[in-house]
């Protein structure tokens, strides 16, 4: 198994993801970038997009985030996102219902998530 780096995806409500990953692709404001183990320290603004967790050449987790910031250090990657939805576990129907129940930026984000599903 290849070397791994610790990925944490945190939203205001909870720690959404915390695990060792081979590679994670992050939607930076200047473009997508991938993080492997021993990546140089970077602090990056993120735009709305999908965080992809790769393992063994396959994508194992896809999480849509609504912008945020990524802090890459020698110890791992921390992604802070105000809104995040796991595209692999959420159902389009359920997300659509939540989009209708919420307002403002929440509703807008959830609608986009529902379309991506």
């Amino acid at each position, binding site marked *: 198994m290849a070397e791994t780096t610790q990925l944490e995806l945190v*939203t*205001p*409500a909870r720690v959404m993801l915390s695990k060792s990953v081979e590679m994670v692709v992050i939607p930076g*404001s200047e473009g997508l970038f991938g993080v492997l183990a021993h990546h140089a320290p970077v602090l990056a603004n993120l735009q709305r997009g999908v965080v992809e967790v790769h393992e063994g050449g396959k994508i194992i987790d896809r999480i849509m985030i609504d912008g945020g910031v990524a802090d890459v*250090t020698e110890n791992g990657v921390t992604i*802070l996102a105000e809104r995040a939805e796991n595209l692999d576990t959420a159902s389009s129907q359920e997300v659509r219902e939540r989009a209708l129940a*919420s*307002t403002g*930026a929440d509703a807008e984000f959830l609608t986009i998530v529902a379309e991506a599903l």
Partner: protein
Amino acid sequence: MPNLKDLKTRINSVKSTQKITSAMKMVAAAKLRRAQEAAESGRPYAARMSAVIASLATKTDRSSASPLLVGRADDKTHLLVIMSADKGLCGGFNGSIARTARKLIAEKQASGHKVLVYVVGRKAGVALGSEIADIVFSRIEGVQGSHMTFGNASEIGQKIIDGFEAETFDSVSLLYNRFVNAITQTVTHTSLIPAEVEATEETIADGLTASYEYEPDEAEILSALLPRNLATQIFSALLESSAAELAARMTAMDNATRNAGDMIDRLTLVYNRTRQANITNELIEIISGAEAL
């Protein structure tokens, strides 16, 4: 001598009060567990956010930094965000917020500042009443408890930033009850603008050694992060305050239930004594009647 019927009514009324207070205590306890979990699961985000801000702040030039971080040089008007509960019956929870707010407003005014207040939650506003009627910047209710979302916090944060940018006020601080444990809540006063940067030794050392790369650059990241940090602080204060409110209500209702129990005991004692006295009286009447014959 109180009559028996009145006493009985009194006892029954205290008993139904006790039922209500003990039900409220149970409801608060059940909700507290969820609120406490929410408060605890919200902490990692707030902690990491302030760590990132702190490490950025040590590296940016303070003279050119955003006023959201360092504040305005000319601090004339202060905005105090007062966070209290929407509902009462929670002991000294709202009272202590109102009391501290009154003191802070007086202090600020004494040092020559103008003060505005942003009232979050209904009760402190009611308690302060006419004292703050002329200096209210805005009010918001119903953002606590089960319908609390990060969206609410962003809304409050955005309103504060808009007001700050329009130069309605030059500095902002937040007053709320922090949840310590089920018995203790502490009134906490933190500065929002300028941002309170906890430069721990670790972050300073981090800032010196880590050769970070920035994408796009420090200033831009900071300007994107500061408004989010404001919303995050408000959100975590809302979470803490909600948990603290439920804890305070639980304790208050527990006391009330116990007091009602004591009261029932006392009233029952009086009731029994009175009943006995009545019986004795009647007996005396009968006996003295019989003797008179």
